[in-house]
């Protein structure tokens, strides 16, 4: 069965830990490449937004997190990026605790966050220079052009972001994140602001690049189909809510393992066996159990 609705995340996790990662990470006592333990964030001490969030991501795994607005997805991602701090709990990557931003983790922001006074080339070169300050201009330029070509934007390499469409800007954001060869990629709803057609194309591109580079990815999304297409596992989050027994903080309700073959493509996704069961299960969760305010 692809989901275990009754079991809480922590027990479900052990069953899903991939044997590959366990073998390669012998030195590390943890099973996952990225490990999040009992994370909680509270702006009011008695009403944490989420609490007791624990999960692990293996090397090369693509994990999506789905939940309604306000459940704390972005906070979790920002904590992983080192841009925010949790109230309690710990995060580890590659056996080391995450205590601040690092070049080991590339971030793609929802609003692309390109610097408008720089061209595409300069934007990516800025990142490459930060990663390898000792590199020569030619080396930097080679790395930049390689990654711009990867997202198919060579013709626009010397344009400013204001001259690009929304989809192209997001491609540059993705190229910038990949260009620093991070150990892990964090994507904060990268396609949220794009129209459906553009989104589809870039999803395909992203999937191809991730499959090729075996990149470990943690991604926030609102789009169920996007999660099913891209993710090996989908984390479902609930919002915090008032119940008869008092306030219950939000948290990880369920981890869904994607049973569809990794060779799936957007075009044939909806013809695959099990696609509708999976989709209905996630949509049901969002509609009836996730409880948006």
């Amino acid at each position, binding site marked *: 069965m692809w989901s275990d609705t009754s079991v809480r995340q922590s027990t479900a996790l052990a069953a899903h830990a991939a044997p590959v990662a366990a073998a390669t990470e012998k030195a590390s006592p943890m099973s996952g490449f990225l490990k999040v333990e009992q994370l909680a964030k509270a702006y009011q001490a008695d009403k944490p937004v989420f609490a007791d969030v624990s999960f692990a991501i293996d090397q090369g795994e693509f994990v999506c997190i789905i939940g309604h607005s306000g459940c704390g997805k972005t906070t979790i991602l920002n904590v992983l990026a080192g841009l925010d701090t949790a109230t309690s709990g710990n995060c580890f990557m590659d056996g080391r605790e995450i205590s601040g931003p690092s070049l080991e983790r590339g971030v793609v922001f929802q609003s692309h966050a390109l610097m408008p006074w720089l061209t595409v080339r300069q934007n990516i070169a800025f990142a490459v220079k930060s990663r390898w300050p000792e590199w020569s201009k030619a080396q930097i330029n080679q790395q930049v052009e390689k990654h711009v070509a990867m997202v198919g934007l060579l013709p626009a390499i010397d344009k*400013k972001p204001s001259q690009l469409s929304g989809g192209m800007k997001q491609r540059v954001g993705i190229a910038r994140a990949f260009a620093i060869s991070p150990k892990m990629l964090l994507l904060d709803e990268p396609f949220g602001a794009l129209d459906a057609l553009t989104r589809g194309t870039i999803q395909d591109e992203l999937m191809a690049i991730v499959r090729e580079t075996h990149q470990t990815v943690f991604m926030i999304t609102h789009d169920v189909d996007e999660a099913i297409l891209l993710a090996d596992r989908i984390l479902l989050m609930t919002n915090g809510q008032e119940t008869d027994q008092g306030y219950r903080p939000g948290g990880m309700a369920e981890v869904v393992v994607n049973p569809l073959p990794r060779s799936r493509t957007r075009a044939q996704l909806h013809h695959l066996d099990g696609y509708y069961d999976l989709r209905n299960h996630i949509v049901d969760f969002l509609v009836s159990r996730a409880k948006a305010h």
Partner: protein
Amino acid sequence: MNRLSLNLRAAVVSLLLLVCFLGIWELATDAASVGGSSAGLTAEEIEYQQMMGKNPGAEKTAGVPGPLAVARASWGHLSDPFYDKGPNDKGIGVQLGHSLARVAAGYLLAMVVAIPLGFLIGMSPLMRKALDPFVQVLKPISPLAWMPLALYALKDSDVSGIFVIFICSIWPMLINTAFGVAAVKRDWLNVASTLEVSPLRKAFQVILPAAAPTILTGMRISMGIAWLVIVAAEMLVGGTGIGYFVWNEWNNLSLTNVIFAVLVIGVVGMLLDLMFAQLQKAVTYVE
């Protein structure tokens, strides 16, 4: 008429207004000189006055000079701008040079102080709150009110003039820099953080270009104020400069030269502003 471009039509209207203005000016000053000192006197009366040692016909006209007289004087000044015949007789170019040098010195000093301080205020909420009362009290003080203190403390009229320019041009730059730096998009700072960019590189390669349009706006306002203030300051301290030239020609009762100087001040001010407009254009970015 509608087929002409807006710019061309605007130029035509400007030209018409100029011609009207010059015409009215000429007519008004003609009328004044008709009522001049020698008018309405009989030949005997004039002869009498000449015998008394007065020369009514040769006296300076009492009225405001007309545009033609000003144009003649302007040509005289502009054709030989750089002569220097002692403290009270220097070419207009020399006088302008002195004024511009004072403005440049005071303005550069203000930049050196205001931009780093603005960065500090913009980046640190603590410093913003701590320095705000000082800025609020010092900002509304007329720069000329500092003049006596400056003259006493610095004991040099030239340096005092520079100080007055410094103190008047610092505030718009400081406030705009602080505002521009504080308003840099969170996203860009986050990008810099996740790339582990050093604080110095972040300041020069992220915050500075992001805040540059706002900083340049402040610098442009400062330059406008500095050019306003230098004329008044030079009238007070004297010696050299376009402001002193105006005051000197007023003491010579040469309104022609005063009007010429007023026009020069306007044109130079406009050129300075145009220069900053170009700079502003160069650092502006489209999001």
